[in-house]
Every structure is written in C-alpha cells, then in structure tokens.
C-alpha cells in the first residue's frame, strides 16, 4: 500500500464541514458554549467526535475485507445483506 500521510485535524475539520454543508447541514447551528436547555454539544465537541468517527470507524471499515486475503477471491464471498437472519430464512440457509 502506498505510504499516505494521515490527514491533520484541520484537514479533517475542513472535510467534515464541507461534507455537511454539501447536503445542507450547518454545524454553525450548534452553540459555542454548553447549552443546558437543549443539551446540544458545542461545535468543537461535534468536530472532536466526527474526527474520531473518520479516524477510527471509516479507517477500520475501509481496511477490512472478507477472507480470503486474495482480493480477487474475496470479491466472490459474502455479498452484502441488510437482514442476514431474515435472508437465511427466505433462502433456506447459506448466505456466503
């Protein structure tokens, strides 16, 4: 895998705010200090949490694939299923 520099906090903040603005969501609606009336996080707390989602969740998911290790063979197993237990009943056992 190519050696790619990890993004900085500032870069992630720019990504987050741009992504949210792209679909019409504005983090500026969040308060700058604690707001006990609504319980809303501050904008800075939201960015902290969202950076963590990108650094941990997105990276972990992106780095995983079903076995076997050979990607050409991994493509052939485990097609996505939203409801594996229901699909199992609908198809009569055996999803992979």
């Amino acid at each position, binding site marked *: 895998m190519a050696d790619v520099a990890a993004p900085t906090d500032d870069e992630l903040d720019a990504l*987050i705010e741009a*992504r*949210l603005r792209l*679909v*019409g*969501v*504005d*983090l500026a*609606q*969040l*308060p700058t200090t604690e*707001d*006990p*009336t*609504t*319980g*809303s*996080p501050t904008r800075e*707390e*939201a960015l*902290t*949490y*969202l950076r963590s*989602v*990108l650094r*941990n*969740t*997105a990276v*972990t*998911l*992106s780095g*995983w*694939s*079903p*076995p076997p290790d050979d990607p050409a063979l991994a493509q052939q*197993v*485990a*097609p*996505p*299923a*939203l*409801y*594996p*237990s*229901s699909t*199992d*009943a*609908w198809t009569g*056992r055996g*999803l*992979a």
Partner: protein
Amino acid sequence: MSIDDGLSRRLFLARLSALAAGATGSALLPGVASAATTAPPTLVDVDAPDGATTDPTSLTVAEAATLIRRGKLTSEELVRACLERIEGYDSLFQAFNLVLADAALARARQLDGSSPRTALHGIPLAIKDNYFSRGVRTTANSFIFADFEPPYDATALSRLEAAGGVMIGKTQMGPLATTRATTPAGVITTVNAWAPDHPNINPGGSSTGSATATATGMALSSVGTQTGGSITAPSNAQGLTGLKPTMGRVSLHGIIPLTFTRDHPGPIARDAMDCAIMLTAMAGPDPADFRTLGLPQLPDLTRAATPVRQGGQTVLRRRTRIGVTPDFLASSNPETAAARRSYLDALAGLRHATVVEVPLPAEWDLLTGTAFNNVRLPERTEPFREYLRQDLQLFGVSVLNWLGGLLLSGDEYLTGQRAKVVMFERVMDEVFDACDVVVQAQPVPFDIIGLPEIGFPIGLRAATSDTPVLPIGTILGGQPYAEDRLLEVVAAYQDVTDWHRRRPELPPAPAASAAPRAPSLAPARLSALEAARIGQ
C-alpha cells in the same frame, strides 16, 4: 406465459391485505396495519402464589389473566391498582411520559363487560414512547416529535390491544431510543426500580421507562425496542425477563426508526411465560412491513414457556445443548462471575440439558467492536436528514450519532453489510454447529445479525455502603426464529430458581414521606459525548 404475467405488484399487495383483513373481519385502511395473528394463542392457566392477590400489581400477566378468566379479578380493579401505584410513585421513578388513566379505565370497563377469551384480556401494559399510538402523543423523548400525534397505531400495539391489552401509558426512554431515559436535553429521568435514590445506577436503556414500570408494578408488562441491548439491558438491570425476537418476528411498522436493520420490538416482562404471551400477541406477518413476510411460523410460545416436570423434577422440553463462550465466565466482577457459575450449574442439573464449551468466531472482537457497530449510524441519519437540515438542536443531546452517519461512505457501509454476512455464517457454522442456544456476554453481536436473545435474572448483588441490593442478569441467544427454544430453557431455569420472583422493595410513597428524599450526588445529566459513546 412469463412468470411475472398475471400478478401485478398492486394485486399481490391487495391479496396480502385481503388475507390479513379476512383474518380480523375488518377492512384495512391505507397505512393501517392488520391486527391479524396466525393462530389463536394457547391460553394457559397459572395460579397466583398465596397472598399475591392482595396486591394485584405483583401478579404476572399469566396469573392476572387466569384470575380474570375465573371471575376472581376484574380488569378495572387491576388497572386501578396500577394507576394508584403510578400516582403514588411516578414522581420518584419517572417511568412515564404520559399516563392514560381515563382511557385505560374506560377500556378496562369495556373489557369487563365481555367474555375473556384472549390471552391479555384486561391486562395493563406500558408502551415505549416510540410506538405510534393513534391520536396520542408519541415523542420518542425527542424535541423532534414533541407534538406528534400519529394517525394510526403501530402494528405491534394494535395487536396487543386486539389481544385484550390495555395501554396504561407511554413510557420514558432514551432520546430517539439511544441511551438510558433522559429528557431530550440529557437530564436523567427514570431511575432503577431497585435503586430510586441512586440515579447514577444505570436502570438500563433505552427502554428504561418500560422496565421500571414493569418492575414497580405500574404495569404488569411492557414493550420496548432493542437496537443495541435496549430490551435485555433494562431487563438485566431490574430483575426482569425481556425477549428480543428475531428480526422480522414483530412488525416495525409504526415504530420510530433508530436503525432500520437492527431495530427489534419485543416484550419486557416478569418471567418467561409472560414474554411468551406478549410476543405471541405482537408477532406475525404484516403486509405493511416486508421484513415480517415469508418467515417461519411462530411456534407455540406459551407451550414452550410451560415448564415440564417428570418424576417430580423439572426437565427441558427437548434435548438442548447450551453453549458457553470463553468470555462468559471471565467477568471482572466476582459476584457476577459466581452468579454465572451457579446459573450454569443449575442448567447442567436439568435433565435433557448439556452444557458445552463453544468458541467465539474468528475476528469476533473486531466485527462486534465500535467501528463495525458504527455501521448503524448512516441508517439513523437517512430518515432524519430533513430534521438535520432544519435545526441540529432538535436532536438535543443525541445529535452526534446522527451527524456521524453523514460521514461514512457508501463503500464502507457495504463493507459493514458484508461483515454481517460473515459474522452470521460464522455464528451459524462455528457456534450453533455445537449448540442450540448460547450464552451472551453482551447483546450487541446478536443485534447486529438479527438473532433472538432473552435477558433474565440469575442472582442479586449484595448491598454495599454505596449501593443497594441490585439484580444480576444474563442473556441467552438462539438460532433464527427459535424463540421457543430460548423460552423452554428459561422457563425450566425459572422453575428451579426464584430470582425472577424477587421484587424491589418500594420505599414509602413520596407523598407520604415525612422527610424529603435525598438522592445521592450523581451525574444529573448525560453529555452529548457520553450519549454518543454509550448509545445503542
């Protein structure tokens, strides 16, 4: 003629609706789900313990229904007793968002005027506030739904009422079904029935109010929803028995979504039999929710929950292998570890039971950990995008998870769905190859893959200088649509133990107290970051 000739989608759906309407003798309205069940449930007579009839709120559903059928108790008497408990104690326990006293009494009187032929005839039930209730405010404890009055009932609620259940109120819950019950702004509301003076002791979430109402006798049973442990956790925390059925067993139509692929409606009750009665009423195909169609028929759950005795001894109804994973006895709490050992010993002592060691599937910690659990986030975001655009503060303390869902890419979401398939296959092939049911150290893995779980009590933790006596619970998981096997095992266990009969000792009613109560110092609210970390 090709296979798709002659049966249009419209005709197919119309036939499904006609079938359902035929079963109830009523026509279906658009958006209104059927109250049909597949077969009339078995009615089981269960005698109340000596003395229990002096306090009808202490009865199980099965005991109360039996007394009503025998003419020894009326629904009105039972509902009034629960309403008196609510009036006396809900300022302390804060289990309800809304109490429907007049409507419940009117319904009870109506039922008392008819022959009790249904399993829940006249039984007061507490309903989590994310179930649509026609014309009755349904808030999910969120600013978003503060004034929402649904135009129809959730299918599960209409079925409970068709079975004779009486909705006594809508219960407190984690905002949008995430954490333990708090206000939308994160201020802690419902407390644990066993520890009303200790709001820092977790009562389990997010179906908190339903559990506390059931544990304190404000209702005889209740319903919750589970996405990440929200039926089994409050059941475990409050000495109750809660059954999260397999995905699709109970319709989600008319329940405010948290995570489409992981939301499971189910009962929170006082024992296995009550879970069986409640789930039998709630379950079944619903034309309004395709996830309920084409599934194995619901087994006779009340039969499954009826203990079997041979030669004076309790035996399992079928030979059953009970799987124990390596993490189960590794609890860091010595009382929990001891209770789990005693529980396994009790199971091993039942004829027809075999306790076997089973492995945890490969990559278990990874695929059930935080990152893969977070695959659920886009599912909570998608149906709420318009509200996110409108005003983030509508989400109160819960907004972070909904924002997080906007950041995962489509390919990462699909990776999560492929991981679910891998996990499901490994559980079926590596775990259930060696056992029929399996202990669960935590509920989330079976929530991810939609398998059934039942939570129930196995002991009590001794009081300390800081904490009162508290229940110890456990979770048992089963194979797809095998809720009957879970009930068989728990019914037999509950026939040889009495943990499920232990009730919290109620303090003097607040109104009658001579001195004001003094809650211990405790976090009065959850922060948004805490809510994001612990939310189901």
